[in-house]
């Protein structure tokens, strides 16, 4: 079973990378982008076959290592 962990800078935490990407998009002529936030996606291939337990395990991994919850939020999706 695969889990996908989305890690994003928390709301209210400055995201300089997102800002720079936004500026670059504007420079390329893409108007209408109000804000850009850049995070990361981590895919886990798990031995667990029960979706609920797989999600729980991935969330534990995110809390302990994959995300730094002081500055980042995360969301787990089972795929």
């Amino acid at each position, binding site marked *: 079973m695969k889990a996908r962990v989305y890690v994003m800078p928390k709301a209210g935490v400055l995201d300089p990378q997102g800002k720079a990407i936004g500026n670059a998009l504007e420079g390329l002529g893409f108007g209408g982008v109000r804000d850009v936030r850049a995070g990361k996606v981590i895919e886990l291939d798990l031995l667990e076959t029960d979706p609920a337990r797989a999600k729980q395990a991935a969330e534990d991994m995110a809390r302990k290592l994959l995300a*730094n919850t002081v500055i980042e939020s995360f969301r787990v999706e089972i795929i």
Partner: protein
Amino acid sequence: MQAAIIVFPGTNRERDMRLALKRASGRDPVMLFHREAALPKGLDLVVLPGGFSYGDYLRCGAMAAQSPIMRAVKDFAAAGGHVLGVCNGFQIMIEAGLLPGGLLRNATLRFLSMDCRLRVERPGTAFTGHWQQGDCFRAPMAHGDGNYFADDATLDRLEGEGLVAFRYVDEAGEATPAANRNGSARNIAGVLSPNLRVCGLMPHPEDLVDPLMGGIDGLPMFQSLAERLVAA
């Protein structure tokens, strides 16, 4: 003072740190590799030096914080041991939960390699015993992720309890936005644990400890540690 320096794959400032500690204390620090599960007995100080441990994978310091020796370092700190972390060492401390907050990408997105000026906000600790309140000194910095972040409640607590060790300041000693090149919250460059025995900072005092390096502005930190931790 018997110090140990922890070396992770990708650590690259351990020799500067060794030189500074030896110069101040007269004793050569022990170098310990990240795979060690225990610290030798009789240590007065553990130092996490700068570098790019584990290639900064995932987040700066995140991988090193999970390495076997960090469990021993956490136990050492919990038992009242002194721990100093500089640059990547500070990032590792934060990831290991030894100090509060987070270190974000520099606000300008640029890697900053230049001197900065630091103001001593908390004198009288083992790390700052040779300075007076408000003393300013020059320190080199070299980092891409040194933008200190914590929520307002944490920042208020740190300031209220006198746990801000150093702030970025200008030539006049003022904590201005211009002096705060990496964008740190409230110009914070270094923080302390509540028992004042764990200190982390982004700039490198160990790189100014000999006239041949261009100055001895950082030497007081190591002299203070050598003096205090001998008496202990």
